[in-house]
């Protein structure tokens, strides 16, 4: 393709990316190097204090805790999502698109509404409690909403389709003869899964896990709604700096740190999946 044509075709996307992504991020980054005014606003005096504050044990602790919650969510999503993708990939070919459609169906409704639905389900007088009562449960309703478990459930639920899709792709492409060969050579079903299927689909698992982790660690809606404000994640901290404390420079520094973590993870994931594909490709050709 000639260069002038590709430049022409790329121009709108590039303009979009630069105007609505690179420039705003640059402005936020610039903001992080100034001081806040006593009453909010920005005092244009250069400082590195905001970045130093990110490493303050209090805020670093919130980062670590967010990473922990996001990590648990990613792990659970991978276990559930991989199983679901495996089941879908084992179904009749004609049925698979239908099942995938149902798996991503929730994506078509609003994130907030989906999250509010969990409040309706989990609150002390909610559907789950009513359902239990219907079965004769009379004791004190359990506390389910506004717990860390509720936050994790909300994150897993919302991001599960990503894992299903990223795991389904390698699973459905896998040559069934590889698994058959393993069994012919005496491998048990578990050994076949562990030594053949799992390694071949690892890039899909990694991609799904990184997606869930990256989307979860910066999330602020789910902890606010399902955590009842009792679980502060890094997204909530950033939100508070901009909308409550009116400390825009510190909020900017926090978001830059968050973006850096996300970029790093996505880079590692891209590098790993690149390596995995170059390593496995010749094997497949030989086989």
């Amino acid at each position, binding site marked *: 393709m000639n260069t002038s044509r590709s430049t022409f075709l790329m121009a709108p996307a590039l303009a979009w990316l630069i105007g609505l992504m690179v420039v705003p991020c640059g402005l936020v980054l610039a903001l992080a190097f100034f001081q806040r005014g006593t*009453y909010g606003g920005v005092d244009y005096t250069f400082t590195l204090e905001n970045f130093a504050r990110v490493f303050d044990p*209090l*805020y670093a602790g919130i980062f670590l805790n967010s990473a922990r919650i996001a990590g648990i969510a990613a792990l659970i999503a991978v276990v559930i999502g991989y199983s679901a993708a495996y089941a879908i990939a084992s179904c009749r070919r004609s049925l698979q698109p239908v099942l995938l459609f149902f798996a991503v169906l929730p994506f078509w409704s609003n994130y907030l509404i989906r999250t509010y639905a969990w409040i309706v389900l989990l609150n002390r007088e909610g559907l789950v409690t009513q359902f239990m009562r219907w079965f004769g449960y009379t004791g004190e309703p359990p*506390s389910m909403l*506004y717990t860390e478990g509720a936050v994790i459930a909300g994150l897993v639920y919302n991001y599960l389709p990503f894992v299903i899709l990223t795991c389904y792709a390698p699973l459905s492409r896998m040559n069934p003869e590889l698994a058959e060969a393993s069994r012919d050579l005496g491998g048990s079903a578990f050994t076949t899964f562990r030594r053949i299927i799992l390694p071949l689909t690892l890039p899909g698992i990694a991609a799904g896990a990184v997606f869930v982790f990256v989307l979860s660690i910066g999330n602020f809606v789910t902890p606010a709604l399902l955590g009842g404000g009792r679980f502060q994640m890094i997204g909530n901290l950033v939100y508070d700096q901009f909308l409550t404390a009116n400390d825009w420079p510190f909020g900017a520094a926090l978001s830059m740190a968050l973006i850096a973590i996300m970029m790093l993870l996505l880079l590692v994931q891209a590098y790993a999946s690149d390596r995995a594909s170059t390593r496995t490709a010749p094997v497949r050709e030989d086989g």
Partner: protein
Amino acid sequence: MKTNNNRTTTARKILLGVSLAALASTANAAELVISNWDGYMAPDAMDAFKAATGNTGEVVKHATNEEIMGKLVASGGKGYDVVFVSSPFAEVLNKLGLAETIDASKVPNLANLYPEAAALAYDPGNTFSVPYTWGTTGLCFRSDLVKAEPASWNDLLKPADDIKGKTTMLATDRWLLAAGQLADGFSVNEVDPAKMEQVKNTLIEAKKTLLAYDDTTFYSKLVSGEAVMVQAWDGWCNYGITDNKDIKYVIPKEGSDLWVDTMVVMKASENKDAALQFINFMLDTKNHAWAAENILYKVPNKAAMDSLPAELSTTYPNMAMPVAELTKFEVLRDVGDSQKEYSRIVSEIKAAQ
């Protein structure tokens, strides 16, 4: 904001054509931009204001004090004529030089206010702010679901076993801290680091027993029974009382803050006379009574309070509270540089496990 108004003005000029001449007498009619909380004034207030003064206005909404403050500080107050903010924020606007002095001669309805309303510590004489609503922050509870009626802030912060996990607190910095400050016997404007450390620890302990932090739906949690005792502004507890007569409001023995929501004219306003007319309009007996009857907050307007139907104060006991008793409480003040420390303490409380 202004551009939009200009466009509608142009459209109106073309449409009205001939009758424009008739409007010449109100040629200096201004278009105000007012920022207020959602539902904090009558939905038809601007129409009535136009009928009364010839001025038009647009009401934009803010969800929190902090949100509108962010905008005002960033824009130097430009784009707004009148803003509704709580007293410490009005004080900040004044300190930043963003608030215009109130010319009392242009607001004759100031005479409707209680004398106490012109003697509030943050702005004696209403020099840069005019009080719109005022009230207390206390405990709102289900009298049918608690064993003993609460009497102290510690009944919320160190709850009895049977109500653990069924209480909520406000998440907004000042009111969250006020609960701890009052429980520990300090001022609601306390800034001493050692005392604030104690308040922080009190509130971190309390957090372990909370259902949630909630600024907006706590009364519906009471109605559903999810929560049995919540920290609440008096008017918001009334929304619960409306739905369930077993819900009651009490001011703990350690006291309450006295919060005041005020109207402030921006120094950057180009329509200051109209802005003062608007404030005067809101202080009108009938208009100010609307706020009391619908928001269920007390208003600092004697004439308006006297005009309220008697059953309002039997249903909602907070409405009957004598002004002298209300103004005994300490009003929230701006704490200046210590606000940064307040933000940090709140972050620490919210991050605590």
